[in-house]
């Protein structure tokens, strides 16, 4: 490798013949074949970032697998080169360091991808409740579903421990209460429903009522009633 040889050069030559250029800067051994290192991992992060607004795109298991595979391969190349470097080839040290940087970047991208998805899944519990719609469920990996279930359970335990006997459902009362009575529409047949002053209301599908809010809340949660916002 002709890394030296600066003695030949005097001042700035306007153009060096290509062959001489190649002699001066020989092509380094490719650190990674098949594209720029860290591309797949960065791609995962980019795609997730593009699906903004808290949406959960499908889990890219294949992309993750490829990024991990790349890390494994980089590490193996480094292992080989480290032993060579130890036996004299100190010129490989830059390459080893470069591969190590790629490894770190891959690790960072992969973890960022997974962690950001967890944050979005966490937000789903607060928005949709305990049972997630099927469309979202499809976008989650099995491990993510497991994480979600454990989070749900942990949250439920905490909410039960606060606020007396029944606990305090913190996923309710998200907005300050504006009025005592609310306009609701019935989404499915429920039957008779008694309100405070003894009167009963028949909840049939598509009927509309003006009911006290605290009575309706649990029915709204169950999906029997729908709050009509004018």
């Amino acid at each position, binding site marked *: 490798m002709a890394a030296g040889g600066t003695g030949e050069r005097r001042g700035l030559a306007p153009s060096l013949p290509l062959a001489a250029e190649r002699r001066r800067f020989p092509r380094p051994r490719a650190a990674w074949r098949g594209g720029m290192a860290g591309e797949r991992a960065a791609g995962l992060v980019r795609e997730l970032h593009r699906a903004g607004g808290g949406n959960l795109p499908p889990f890219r298991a294949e992309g*993750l697998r490829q990024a*991990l595979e790349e*890390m*494994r391969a*980089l*590490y193996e190349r480094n292992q080989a080169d480290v032993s060579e470097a130890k036996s004299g080839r100190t010129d490989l040290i830059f390459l080893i360091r470069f591969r190590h940087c790629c*490894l*770190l970047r891959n*690790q960072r991208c*992969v*973890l960022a991808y*997974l*962690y950001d998805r*967890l944050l979005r899944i*966490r937000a789903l519990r607060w928005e949709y409740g305990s049972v997630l719609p099927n469309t979202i469920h499809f976008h989650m*990996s099995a*491990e*993510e579903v*497991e*994480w979600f279930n*454990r*989070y749900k359970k*942990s*949250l439920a*335990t*905490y909410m039960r*421990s*606060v*606020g*007396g006997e029944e606990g*305090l459902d*913190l996923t*309710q*009362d998200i*907005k*300050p*209460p504006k009025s*005592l009575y609310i306009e609701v529409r019935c989404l499915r047949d429920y039957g008779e429903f008694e309100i*405070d*002053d*003894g009167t009963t209301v028949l909840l049939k599908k598509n009927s509309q009522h003006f009911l*006290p*809010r*605290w009575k309706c809340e649990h029915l709204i949660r169950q999906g029997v009633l729908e709050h009509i916002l004018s």
Partner: protein
Amino acid sequence: MAAASGEGTEGDSDGGSEELVLTPAQLIRSLEQAWLNEKFAPELLESKPEIIECVVEQLDHMEANLKRAKRGDLKVSIHRMEIERIRYVLSSYLRCRLVKIEKFFPHVLEKEKSRAEGDPSILSPEEFAFAKEYMANTETYLRNVALKHMPPNLQKVSLLKSVPKPNLDSFVFLRVLERQENILVEPETDEQREYTIDLEEGSQHLIRYKTIAPLVASGAVQLI
């Protein structure tokens, strides 16, 4: 509110170190103060188990009173609205704390672990259990899905270093409740020098959180 709840409630009903007797109005005011402070502070503040316990007791008390009340009484609606409002403030306060616990979970747990014996706790026992479970859940997930498939020298990740810390340098608005003297204000630019100010009672300021953090804890200022 006094009509529905009757007499004033005790502070620590389980006979804590201080028997504070607060009227319901004072109790709700301290709940609101804790709520506002928690909302505007960048970090997780001290937990206030006594306030929460008393408010919950108060709410139960009011609900029970309402059940006994005459039907169609106008007061019922008003007290009902009061209950809803108080419940909203309490829920919002606890939610705010949970959000911060989840956001800064390694730092919160670390702070609690390295707490000195007499210092007040920032986590209630239930919050502590929740935080620990959250950390274990997340660590296990990351380890099983990614870390254990990575090269041996990259399998450990320090969550304490990777998860961002709360930004204590963010600016907050505050109102002064007790007069403070000689608060040191750090310089913003190279040309300025640090100077001290006195905080007059009732005045309002916009200042870095870090400078006045202890004053929030002691109740000398209120974040707005």
